[in-house]
């Protein structure tokens, strides 16, 4: 970060690890306090630790992804309406995010569907499980009607495949079970089982503007996918905020970004909540399938079709954030 600031960078985009984001947000807060004439903005597109917009929130941090609690809130909204689900198995990686997912799942399920029993709440070592079959056997034997997991990467593939192989046919609610080889590897074994919580509709196609954007991306990068559409939102909103402020100074841009409303390429209304700098946006729950797919993932023919949409207003959760604003 010091090096980036030294090179004149005043806008830092970061995602993919809440650990890094927690360190960055503290460092940037400190930097901005010490250098009031030379401030830096932190645009977080993926780190979903709820703390970043609650107890650890600060004025210079803006989050463009729904946080883990909001995603779980959306997932449990869907589970709430499904009367076939009477028992749930929660499994995750043994680290902060896996634990946060499990805690949120228990909390929201208790509130929304007290009749659901949680038949398993398990953490497994992260990145060290060579075979998920024993876990899948256990899930199967527990008689769960749904599985919730925050797994990503190889742990997600292993779990998804192993559950598929036991012949268990229940929805698996996930955060990160798509793209980067995961969609392709899970393939048919996860069809109509894997559900993913995400932003930005892929199938059915939302708008012509998004279609042109997606096709343009695929023409340039035929082997890649738009894995995190929120990055486009973040960049567009930053540009819009700069225009609105008529300045590229972080302090002016931050003021413009706060509370800003924006319509994404998907035609969705986004709003940067002023109280905690958490973007409020519609959240979708999609199913992994090879039917009715226009934009697939990993060029595999499999992709995500939206099943449920939680309106932006319904995704909002109260915040404990009390940020100090510059005068």
């Amino acid at each position, binding site marked *: 970060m010091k090096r980036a600031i030294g090179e004149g960078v005043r806008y830092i985009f970061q995602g993919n690890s809440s650990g890094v984001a927690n360190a960055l947000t503290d460092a940037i807060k400190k930097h901005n306090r010490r250098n009031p004439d030379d401030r830096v903005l932190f645009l977080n597109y993926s780190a979903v630790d709820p703390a970043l917009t609650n107890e650890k929130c600060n004025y210079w941090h803006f989050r463009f992804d729904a946080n883990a609690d909001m995603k779980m809130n959306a997932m449990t909204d869907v589970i709430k309406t499904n009367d076939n689900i009477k028992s749930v198995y929660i499994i995750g990686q043994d680290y902060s995010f896996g634990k946060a997912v499990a805690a949120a799942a228990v909390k929201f399920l208790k509130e929304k569907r007290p009749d659901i029993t949680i038949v398993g709440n398990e953490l497994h070592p992260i*990145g060290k499980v*060579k075979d998920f*079959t024993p876990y899948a056997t256990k899930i*199967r034997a527990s008689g769960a009607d749904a599985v919730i997991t925050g797994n990503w990467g*190889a742990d997600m593939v*292993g779990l998804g495949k192993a559950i598929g192989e036991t012949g268990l046919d229940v929805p698996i609610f996930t955060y990160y079970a798509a793209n980067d080889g995961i969609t392709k*590897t899970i*393939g048919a074994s996860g069809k109509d089982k894997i559900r993913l919580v995400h932003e930005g509709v892929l199938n059915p196609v939302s708008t012509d503007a998004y279609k042109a954007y997606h096709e343009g991306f695929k023409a340039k990068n035929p082997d890649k996918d738009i894995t995190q559409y929120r990055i486009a939102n973040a960049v567009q909103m930053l540009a819009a905020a700069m225009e609105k402020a008529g300045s590229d100074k972080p302090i002016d841009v931050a003021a413009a970004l706060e509370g800003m409303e924006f319509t994404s390429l998907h035609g969705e209304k986004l709003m940067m909540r002023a109280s905690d700098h958490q973007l409020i946006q519609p959240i979708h729950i999609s199913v992994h399938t090879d039917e009715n797919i226009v934009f697939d993932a990993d060029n595999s023919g499999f992709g995500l079709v939206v099943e449920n949409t939680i309106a932006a207003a319904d995704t909002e959760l109260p915040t404990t954030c009390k940020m100090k604003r510059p005068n």
Partner: protein
Amino acid sequence: MFELIFFSLLNGIVTGLLLFMLASGLTLIFSMMGVLNFAHASFYMLGAYLAYTISLYLGFWVGLLVAPILVGLLGAMVERYGLRYVHRWGHVAELIFTFGLAFLIEEVVQFIWGKDTKAYHEPEILQFPLFTFFGQDFPAYKAFMLFISIAIFIGLLLILTKSRVGLIIQAAITKPNMTAMLGHNVPLVFMSVFGVGCALAGVAGVIAGPALGTFPGMAVVLGSIVFVIVVVGGLGSLIGAFVASLLIGLLQTFAIALDYSVNDLLQVFNITTDVDSALRDLWTLSLPQIAPILPYLLLVLILIFRPTGLFGKRET
């Protein structure tokens, strides 16, 4: 409960036999050359990746045949042009050489194939549930894995105990100098055993790739556990490796399947624990959580109480 035990038993045997394919090569190499081949699991990974690439063009079965041969040849070359030179500077140098090789192979694999998980699938002919028991499927591919590993175990055992080649290998393991004096080409035996050991790891990779996932971390998750098996089973003992593999395979599967915690154990002895005590993390520790460290616990216990391993004759 019976369902859980039945499937855990099956899964444990499948995992155990897969581990055996890796451990058998490693234990032979170790006992013969005294080299702990840290790169052994990397050859397993290479097997999976090569078979994946071959399967894209020529199908799974060609990959099953060709990939292990390629890995075996590569292993033989590593011995001939790498280890044999390094050997002059003693065992420590050899150890560090294989250690470096493991990292090198991992980086090369990431360089060629990338970091993401490869969609390496079972052949379609084996993509059906072999039988359904208590509503739970047992995939045919798992049965195929069982079959291949048992065939390899029997084959290896016969070759080592009944054939002339096996006699020479056994002689070279125990008395390399004497065997050389009798006119046998010991360096060639070493090279062949290293090559065959790597090829076995390659086979394990080919059949494990579709089941356990083909990704750059696949060598790391299996690498250390294979050493545990070799030490627990006893150096140079094929039977020992076999028993230890099954033991570890079952230990890990059952530890995950059975949800007992320290608390439950204490309650058996009528000791109640305080929920608010500072040690409550210890009380709530459950068997699935400590499952990954159980094999290493076994390793430590074996080294203390029976340093030769279960079936070994030499001290580790």
